[in-house]
C-alpha cells in the first residue's frame, strides 16, 4: 500500500480516508514525516517559517459549556470566576501594540449574560484606539452562543460582529469534528455541523479563519481522519481557512484526566494533517502544548508556522502546561533548524524577515 500511496502523492493526487488511516496506524514516523516534509517544501519553497506576534485575552472564564477536557472554565458563582471589564481589555491590547503585536486573540467562556452588543461596543473601542490590530476572536461556539442569547440568527450575529470590527475567526472549539467524540468530551458544546456552518458563513462574509483539532483524549484514529477530511471538504467549498492547527489534550486539572498523545503521535498527526489538507497552505506547530524542542522538530513533519508568541495564555496553562516563548526564541528555533524566520500578520502576509 505504501508504494502505491507514495506514487499517488508524487503525482499530486489526493489520498483518501482509507489511505490516511493506513498512514496514521501502520506507517512509521519517518515515512509519514518525509511525505509531509516534501509537500511542505513544495508549498513553501522559500524556506520561511512564520509566526505572529499576538496576545490571548480570555475575557471571561465563566462558561456554560463545561467541557470535560477543560481546566479553565468556572461556574458564574465560583470564587475565582471573572469577567474582564473594557478598561482592562483595552490596557491589554495597548500592551500588545507596544510590543509590536498585530493580532488579538480574544476568546472566553460561554458567559450567560454577554450579548452581541457587549462585543460590538468592545470591538468598536478597540478598533478606534488601535486600528492596526487585527481582531481574530470568538470561536464558533461563542458566535453561536452569542447569537442565541441575543435572539439573532448566527449569520446575522456574525455580520454585526464583523461590522463592529471582527476581522477573522479562530478555529478553536473544533476539538474532534465527530459528534460521538464530542458527546464524550464536550456534551454541551455545539456539534460539528454548527462549527462548520459558522466557518462557512464567516468565509462567505469574506473573513478568513483557522481550523484546529484537539486530539489525544477519547477519539479513535478513524475520528482523526474524519476530522481532517471534514475540514478539507469545507476548504474545497470556501477556500477560507488560512491554517490548520492540531494540538494535544492537556489532562491536568480536567474532568477527563488521564493520558494524552505522545510525541510520536503528535508528529504523526501533524504530518498527516499536512498530507490530507493539501488545500490549506499553512500548518502550525503547537509549541504551547509540545514545548520548544518538539515545535522545532515539527518543522520537519509538515509544519511551516510557529503560531503566535502569545504574550498571555491562560487556557492551556490551567491544564498544567506552561511553556513560554519570546519572539527571540521563536526566531532562534526557526533559524537553528535552517529556516528563514518571518513575522506575519493574521492573513499570513509577511511583515519582516529575520
Amino acid at each position: 500500500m505504501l508504494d502505491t500511496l507514495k506514487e499517488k502523492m508524487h503525482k499530486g493526487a489526493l489520498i483518501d480516508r482509507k489511505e490516511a488511516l493506513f498512514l496514521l496506524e501502520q506507517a512509521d514516523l519517518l515515512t509519514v514525516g518525509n511525505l509531509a516534509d516534501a509537500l511542505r517544501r513544495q508549498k513553501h519553497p522559500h524556506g520561511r517559517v512564520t509566526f505572529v506576534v499576538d496576545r490571548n485575552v480570555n475575557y471571561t472564564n465563566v462558561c456554560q459549556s463545561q467541557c470535560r477536557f477543560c481546566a479553565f472554565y468556572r461556574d458564574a458563582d465560583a470564587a475565582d470566576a471573572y469577567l474582564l471589564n473594557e478598561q482592562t481589555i483595552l490596557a491589554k491590547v495597548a500592551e500588545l501594540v507596544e510590543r509590536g503585536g498585530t493580532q488579538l486573540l480574544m476568546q472566553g467562556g460561554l458567559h450567560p449574560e454577554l450579548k452581541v452588543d457587549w462585543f460590538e461596543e468592545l470591538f468598536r473601542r478597540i478598533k478606534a484606539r488601535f486600528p492596526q490590530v487585527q481582531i481574530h476572536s470568538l470561536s464558533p461556539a461563542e458566535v453561536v452562543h452569542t447569537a442565541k442569547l441575543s435572539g439573532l440568527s448566527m449569520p446575522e450575529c456574525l455580520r454585526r460582529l464583523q461590522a463592529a470590527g471582527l476581522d477573522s475567526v479562530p478555529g478553536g472549539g473544533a476539538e474532534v469534528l465527530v459528534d460521538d467524540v464530542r458527546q464524550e468530551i464536550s456534551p454541551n458544546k455545539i456539534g460539528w455541523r454548527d462549527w462548520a456552518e459558522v466557518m462557512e458563513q464567516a468565509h462567505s462574509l469574506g473573513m478568513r479563519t483557522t481550523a484546529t483539532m484537539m486530539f489525544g483524549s477519547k477519539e479513535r484514529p478513524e475520528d482523526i481522519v474524519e476530522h481532517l477530511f471534514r475540514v478539507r471538504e469545507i476548504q474545497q467549498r470556501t477556500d477560507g481557512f488560512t491554517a490548520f492547527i492540531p494540538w494535544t489534550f492537556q489532562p491536568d486539572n480536567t474532568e477527563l484526566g488521564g493520558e494524552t498523545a505522545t510525541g510520536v503521535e503528535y508528529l504523526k498527526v501533524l504530518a498527516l494533517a499536512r498530507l490530507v489538507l493539501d488545500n490549506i497552505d499553512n500548518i502550525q506547530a503547537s509549541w504551547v502544548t509540545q514545548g520548544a524542542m518538539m515545535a522545532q522538530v515539527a518543522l520537519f513533519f509538515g509544519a511551516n508556522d510557529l503560531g503566535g508568541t502569545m504574550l498571555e495564555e491562560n487556557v492551556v496553562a490551567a491544564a498544567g502546561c506552561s511553556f513560554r516563548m519570546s519572539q527571540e526564541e521563536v526566531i532562534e528555533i526557526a533559524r537553528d533548524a535552517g529556516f528563514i524566520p518571518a513575522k506575519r500578520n493574521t492573513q499570513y502576509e509577511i511583515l519582516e524577515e529575520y
Partner: protein
Amino acid sequence: MTELFNSIRSKIESGARISDAEALSLFESNDLLAIGELAALANTRLNGDRVYFNTNRHINYTNICVNRCTFCAFSKGVEDEGCYTLALNDILEKCAEAVASGATEIHMVGGLHPELPFDFYLEMLAAIRADNPALHVKAFTAVEIDYFSSLTGQTAAEVIRELKQAGLGSMPGGGAEIFRQEVRVKICPEKISGERWLEVIETVHREGLKTNATMLFGHLEAYSDRIDHLAKLRELQDSTRGFQAFIPLAFQPDNTRVPGATGVGGVDALKTLAISRLYLDNFRHIKAYWVMLGLKIAQVALAFGVNDLDGTVVEEKIGHDAGADSPQALAKSQLCGMIRKAGKLPVERDTLYNELKTY
C-alpha cells in the same frame, strides 16, 4: 548531500565506518529526516525493534563538591544552604524501597566530598550488597574514582579493585562532558582532563567492569569538539570493548553559570543522537536520557537510532536542579507505553543488558 547520504548508507550496509569529515557534514546538514533514516537503519541492523529500559533508582549521596563546574546547578559547598550528605541508613532505606518496587539497579553518583573517607564508600557498597544481594550497584564516575585515588594515594586500579571487591557492579558514564581541554577550562576547570577520564575508564574496563559513556552537549562546544569526543570513545571501545551504552546529555541551562548558553534545540538533540548512532558503530546501545530530553523528544528519538530509554529513575536531582521539566519518575507501564506507541518492542533489561522481560 544526497551523495553523502548514499555513501553513508552503503557504509552501514557493508559494516564500514564513517569518517570524522562525514560526521561533520552530518552535523552541518539540516536534513534531519535523512540523518534519522540512516541512524534508524544502523540501529535496526544492531537491535531490530527492541528498545531497552530498566527498573532503577537514582541516589545522589551528596551534593557537596570540591569542583565548581559552571554547567552544574547541583553542587554546593560545605557551608552552603541546601547542602546535604545522606547517612548510610538513608541510603539503605532508599535501596530497600527500590528493591521493594522491583528495581534491579541503583544508579549512584555524588559530588567530590572534601571530608568523607574512602572507607565510607566501601562500607556503603558492602552494606547495600549485604542487604540486597540481587541489586546491581552502578556507581561513581571516573571523576570520583580519580578523587578516591588522590584521597588514598592509591592508583586508580587499586581503588577500582577495592570498590569491586566491596560490591560495585559497573559504572555509569558521567563526568566525560566534552573531552577537549579548551572547552573543559570554560565549563569544568577543576575537573579531571579528558585524557584522565579516558585513562581511568580504560583501567575500569581492564579491571573487568563495564561502564557507559556520556557527552554533555549544547553549551560552548563546536561540532568538531563533539566529533573529537566521539572519536576518542570509538578508539577506546576498539581497545577495551568495555562500554555498554553511549548517552548524549542535553545541557540544561537553568541555575548554571555558562555564559550565553541557551540549551539544546529539538533538532540538535535528535541529530546528535542519530549521528552518535552512526559514528559509534562499536557501541551496541544509544540511550536517550528522558530526564534531560523530556519524554516527547526521548520517544521521538526511537525513530532516530536510539534503542534505550534508561529507566524508571525515581529520584533525579542533577538535571532537575538545572531546570529539566521532565517528571521525577516514570512507571514501567509509562515507559512501555511510550515504546509501544513508537512502534517498537519494550524489553526490560538488567544493568548488563541481559533481557529480563519482553512486554
